[in-house]
């Protein structure tokens, strides 16, 4: 195929195609690669651990992967009739963790919500800055100190620490600042006038709260609950000093003190992988929920063009019924 060059009258009439180099691409793809590598290193320990949990009966703590791929070690977590079983401990700890986490989540949601509502109304005075820092203190105090302090506190009062009295309290402390910050962000996006409009139209304070405020902020409350739940589900440093000998340990403590109470076998990995799976599952549920919601969000259109296409005016269709004063 020969290209026939068009007869050109002037040099500047020639059509020149030039490859435009997209400068930004390199940075973006470079960073994206970095991001993927980053994710890899973030997840690799857990993945390795999970892989090792599927080993056969001769499986050991570390590589190489031994035996056929089985669920044997997973079974030892749940079935008390299997050899090497740890089911009783796991179940006890699992229940302990579950209940603690549920309650902690609930309390965190309630306290975070009420604290943020209090701040919303008053965020203009000096004392509030102090209060804000106190809340942030809960975030900054090393976990260990909170545990130690609570333990000493109970000793000071002459009582033995009970998980429900101490660990619950300490874990809620950790969760409150997260919940508070989440709720603050939610309130920021919230239009105060909506509540006034509701009041204008006849709703009293309780009805306004129920019909208008709550539906618009419930995601923040639910997020707070999730925070409280997962933080408690995973906590180690706070609870380690607060247990006594006769209550079941929460799962992380069980895992952390495993070497001193159980032979180290791949079922430890199964346990670790299992608890991680629960956490990840919750988070991915949140991910799905958030992305679904974001898909339906669109900025309202304000351009006149849209309006002009919509020809029915205020004084148009349907005729006007003069309303009596």
């Amino acid at each position, binding site marked *: 195929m020969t290209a026939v060059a068009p007869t050109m009258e002037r040099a500047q009439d020639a059509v020149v195609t030039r490859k435009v180099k997209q400068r930004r691409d390199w940075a973006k793809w470079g*960073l*994206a690669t970095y*991001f993927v590598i*980053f994710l890899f290193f*973030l997840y690799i*320990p*857990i993945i*390795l*651990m999970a892989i090792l949990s599927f080993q056969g009966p001769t499986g050991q703590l*570390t590589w190489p992967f031994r035996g056929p791929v089985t669920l044997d070690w997973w079974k030892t977590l749940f079935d008390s009739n299997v050899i090497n079983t740890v089911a009783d401990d796991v179940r006890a700890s699992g229940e302990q963790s579950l209940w603690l986490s549920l309650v902690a989540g609930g*309390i965190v949601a309630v*306290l975070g919500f*009420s*604290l943020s509502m*209090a701040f919303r*109304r*008053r965020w*203009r005075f000096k004392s509030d*800055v102090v209060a804000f820092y*106190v*809340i942030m203190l809960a975030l*900054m*105090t*090393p*976990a*260990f*100190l*909170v545990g*130690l*302090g*609570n333990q*000493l*506190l109970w*000793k*000071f009062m002459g009582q033995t620490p009970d998980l429900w009295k101490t660990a619950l*309290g300490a874990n*809620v*402390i950790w969760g*409150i600042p997260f919940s508070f910050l989440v709720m603050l962000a939610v309130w920021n996006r919230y239009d*105060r006038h909506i509540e006034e409009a509701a009041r204008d139209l006849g709703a009293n304070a309780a009805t306004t709260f129920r019909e208008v405020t709550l539906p618009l902020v419930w995601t923040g409350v639910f997020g707070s609950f999730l925070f409280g739940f*997962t933080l408690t589900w*995973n906590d*180690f*440093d706070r609870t*380690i*000093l607060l247990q006594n000998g006769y209550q079941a340990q929460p799962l*992380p403590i069980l*895992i*952390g003190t495993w070497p001193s109470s159980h032979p180290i076998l791949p079922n430890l*990995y199964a346990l*670790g992988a299992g*608890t*991680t799976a629960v956490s*990840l599952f919750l*988070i*991915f549920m949140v*991910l799905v929920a*958030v*992305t679904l919601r*974001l898909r339906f969000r669109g900025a309202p259109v304000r351009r006149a063009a849209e309006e002009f296409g919509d020809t029915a005016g205020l004084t148009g269709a349907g005729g006007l019924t003069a309303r009596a004063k």
Partner: protein
Amino acid sequence: MSSSSTPEPPASDATRVALQEVEEAEAILEQQPPQAERALGEAAARGGGGWVTAVLAAPGFLWIGFYLIAPLVVIILVSFWTRTDTGFSKVWTTANYGDLFHDSTYWHNMLTTFETSLIAVAACLVLGFPVAYFLALKVKSLRMQVALFIIALAPFWTSFLTRALAWTFPLMGTEGALNKSLQQLHVTSGPVSEFSYSLLSVRAAMVQLYILFMITPLFFSLSQVDRAALEAARDLGGNWWRTFREVILPQTMPGIVIGSIFIFVLTMGDYGTVATVGGGNITSVGTLIYSKTTAIEYPQGAASAILLVILLMIGVWVITRFSNLREEL
């Protein structure tokens, strides 16, 4: 255009007049007095909603008072009391602090932990910044941003202890994946024992475990950077480094400060990671306090804890000098 009587050229006169008009208009439109609209508040509207605020704030603050403030106060008290075999007795003494000050291993320990913290902060910053930058400034759709952010954040929501555990045998141990791969690739000839139960592995583990505390504030800071300002800087001829230093870095300082505070505080007070990944070999201030506590040396443990808190407060204060945080909040 001939100018008649005025000495100044017409052009500047026009500009001056125009500017004057604009100033006047602005002066009218933005009068100072009643900042009424800003003083509006529901409490003011209902003329006395103060007690509702108190009711809302009370439960939270009571809880914090009992489970956070009181324990800290008790720690302070106990650090000044005397040890007994079953706990402590309320006999005032400063011996606990005295012993600590003269205990060189304690200070050595403290120094090592401090070093670990600094390394952790620096590493998290350097390694985490590109991630935050990518998410905040390079990913276009909000949905993708949030999705990727959550994916990156998810491991944080798993038990960090489990991750620390996974760090030991499966990954870093002498039979672990890292060593095996290095041997496969003929980079090393035999297993490297320094990878596990060592200071190196503890520090590496900490970075992996805490880096998300740096990425999150950085992400939020970076997403507030004015992209128009970035483009303007590029327009004016700045190369990447200048733009970064002059435009991005200042606006990200609050995020950097917050992230550094988080990581500093968390790593200085860390117990679980050091205990798990370090085996029994590595000590930190956290493990020290723990061991004193389990040895029923409460006052000594408390004193160590208080010293730690003081150092933390100094550290945080130093870090906040880098940015006027209050304004940004």
